[in-house]
């Protein structure tokens, strides 16, 4: 299925969860947060949150600033 990750259209496996996405793209990084369709997905629900076609995901991490 096709989803959008950080503004880029991307094909992923149908059964992909938020947890899969985080471990694939932000592995080893602490201080990560995820929004799906502009809703926060709490860390405790990453495993249990499957992604659907057309979902828009923001995968964010700590950076210097402010």
């Amino acid at each position, binding site marked *: 299925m096709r989803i959008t990750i950080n503004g880029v259209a991307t094909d992923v496996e149908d059964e992909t969860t938020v947890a899969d996405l985080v471990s694939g793209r932000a592995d080893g990084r602490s*201080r990560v947060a995820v929004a799906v369709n502009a809703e926060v997905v709490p860390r405790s629900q990453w495993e249990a949150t499957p992604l659907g076609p057309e979902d828009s995901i923001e995968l964010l991490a*700590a950076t210097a600033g*402010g």
Partner: protein
Amino acid sequence: MTTHEVARALQPIEAADPFQLAGQTFTSRLLLGTGGAPSLEVLERAIVASGTQLVTVALRRVETSTGGGLVEVLNRCGVRLLPNTAGCMTAREAVLTARLAREAFDTAWVKLEVIGDEDTLLPDPLELLDAAEQLVADGFTVLPYTNDDPILARRLADVGCAAVMPLGSPIGSGLGIRNPHNIALMRDLVSVPMVLDAGIGTASDAAMAMELGCDAVLLASAVTRARDAEQMALAMRHGVDAGRLAAQAGRIPRRWHAKASTPLQGRPDL
């Protein structure tokens, strides 16, 4: 004395006059932003020299983020992290960013930034107040970056913000405190802690903020973009400490004419 030794020597002086923010005690009255440093090594040395205990961090998309290693450096420094909503332009965006930051950083503290314009980076007062109200209702400890407007600061305090953080001048401008009178008026109007945030250029600006009644100073660029960030961090620390001491000591009144410090009595008739 090395920079490190001087920094260490200041700790007991600062510890004698701690600063309360949302129920937490800090002995350092200097808050540091992490943006603008040429490297993590420079940032780390600046943090150590500054003596700060609270530093701001932003959230950005993972692939564009330069944050790899940042959290580790900050953990090593033993500082508390204060996530911000840098770059947000609407209350909706800022509230969502704050909620994401709460997840990422495991803290309900947020430096709330809602800017109205990318050229000036000045806060949008209406969006800011709206976002502050929503976040307070959601249980956040809200520390808003605000205009140097005493009435807006009072409104932010009234909706439950834990502090107000007025700008001295635009972010990164180094123009210092352009309207000191407003900062002094704000001090009279709000009882929550006041943190001068943005516009500091050099140590005398930091001292002035404290003399005007601020409880602390938050700065980034003035240190991280200085030629010698570590030395400037130490200078800012001295500035904050000196300004605080002066504010507590009670300055002499300003006078139009001179007032001799040497008595006229006993002057020889030459």
